[in-house]
């Protein structure tokens, strides 16, 4: 049999170049699984299409891309490794939706205040007092607002704080949770470097920065890499004082 025996043989080139429209591409792929002529041609031509991938002028990758990618990877790695060897690897299907970055709109302080009032924030409930003799007095504060299925505490010891959540849904595709500090000075909440996802609904996040003058710790979901100003309403709010 010659290579030209299949009437669809010309589609092999379109297939490896991804020039077949969606639908036809999958249809041809299905055909090729049962057509050894097309399979052989795809294999032959894939050598070239693979080679073409690197046949472009080489450019430097902007460093900020690395920062954004690695901030997410480190956050997810930490959660994964903390979950231990039995944890599921975060395998996700290729998302079809594209998210845009750095197209951020400011989120005014008034909007924060209004949203938290709607959520019924009147200050967090003190769950436990000092821990006793060693170290600064530690306390756990129930988050004043969080999704209904989630539990959330802010653990404060001295100037350090840790946000501990459970039952929290993963952020939407292409987004990540970011911690914000809402200070009692009338300005919009300030960003922190604390970006996190959840593992089986759980996360434990150190709240960076000085809590002095902070009235609330907030969490929003933001584009991967984080934002300079919040772009969504908070999903979690915990009153510090």
């Amino acid at each position, binding site marked *: 049999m010659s290579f030209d025996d299949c009437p669809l043989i010309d589609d092999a080139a379109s297939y490896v170049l991804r020039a077949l429209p969606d639908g036809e591409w999958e249809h041809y792929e299905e055909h090729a699984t049962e057509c050894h002529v097309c399979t052989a041609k795809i294999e032959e031509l894939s050598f070239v299409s693979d080679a073409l991938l690197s046949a472009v002028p080489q450019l430097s*990758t902007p460093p900020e891309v690395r920062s954004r990618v690695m901030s997410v990877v480190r956050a*997810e790695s*930490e959660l994964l490794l903390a979950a231990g060897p039995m944890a599921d690897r975060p395998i996700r299907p290729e*998302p079809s939706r594209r998210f845009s970055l750095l197209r951020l709109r400011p989120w005014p302080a008034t909007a924060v205040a209004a949203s938290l009032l709607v959520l019924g924030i009147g200050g967090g409930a003190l769950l436990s007092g000092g821990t006793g003799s060693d170290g600064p007095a530690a306390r756990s504060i129930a988050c004043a607002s969080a999704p209904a299925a989630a539990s959330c505490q802010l653990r404060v010891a001295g100037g350090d704080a840790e946000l501990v959540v459970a039952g929290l849904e993963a952020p939407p595709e292409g987004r990540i949770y970011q911690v914000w500090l809402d200070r009692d000075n009338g300005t919009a909440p300030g960003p922190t470097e604390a970006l996190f996802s959840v593992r089986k609904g759980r996360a434990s996040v150190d709240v960076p920065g000085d809590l002095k003058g902070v009235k609330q710790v907030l969490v929003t979901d933001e584009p991967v890499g984080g934002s300079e100003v919040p772009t969504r309403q908070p999903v979690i709010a915990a009153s510090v004082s």
Partner: protein
Amino acid sequence: MSRMRKNADHSPTELRDLADEDLMQLVRRGEAQAFEVVYERHSSAAFSLAYRMCGTRPAAEDVVQESFLSLWRSGARYDRARGSVRTWVLGIVHNRAIDSLRRSVVHDRRRASDEGIEERFEARERTEVEVARLSESEEIRQALLTLPAEQSRVIELAYFGGFTQSEIATMIDTPIGTVKGRMRLGLEKMRAQLGGLREVMP
């Protein structure tokens, strides 16, 4: 296999000595430092491809970021029997860029250098592998350039422009069967020219 240890931390130097395929085993376990080495090795090629296809820096950055996060989260799917890590990475970038281009409402497929970014390489010293890759890349580009113009054009429009064969047929006012034939003939000629090429391993 490998100099890879089990259940142990690897120093950055040790990680950089590992082959891509060994690094991917660590990535599967969720080791961020191993992933970072993979990123270091292939991000420039990924960005270059994305920029060549998308034509703007923000779009290329988005594609690269999405692609690397995707491969971080799907590292277990890498199958060394189906090719190198580099090809796998660039394949993801290519698919993402095409998806991005086809979603574009305006669909204004522009070309690179419209932002004044000319071809430039990282200032750091190139390794032997990188030099070999550049040479290989040049050889592939030359093979594309030696094709008849009507063949190289349809290949470029499809592969780097993200156009479908029917869009190309309309664009160049040529029957779709002719477009498909040109693609196939062009790729077959390149295959013959590049027959001796072997992928450079990292």
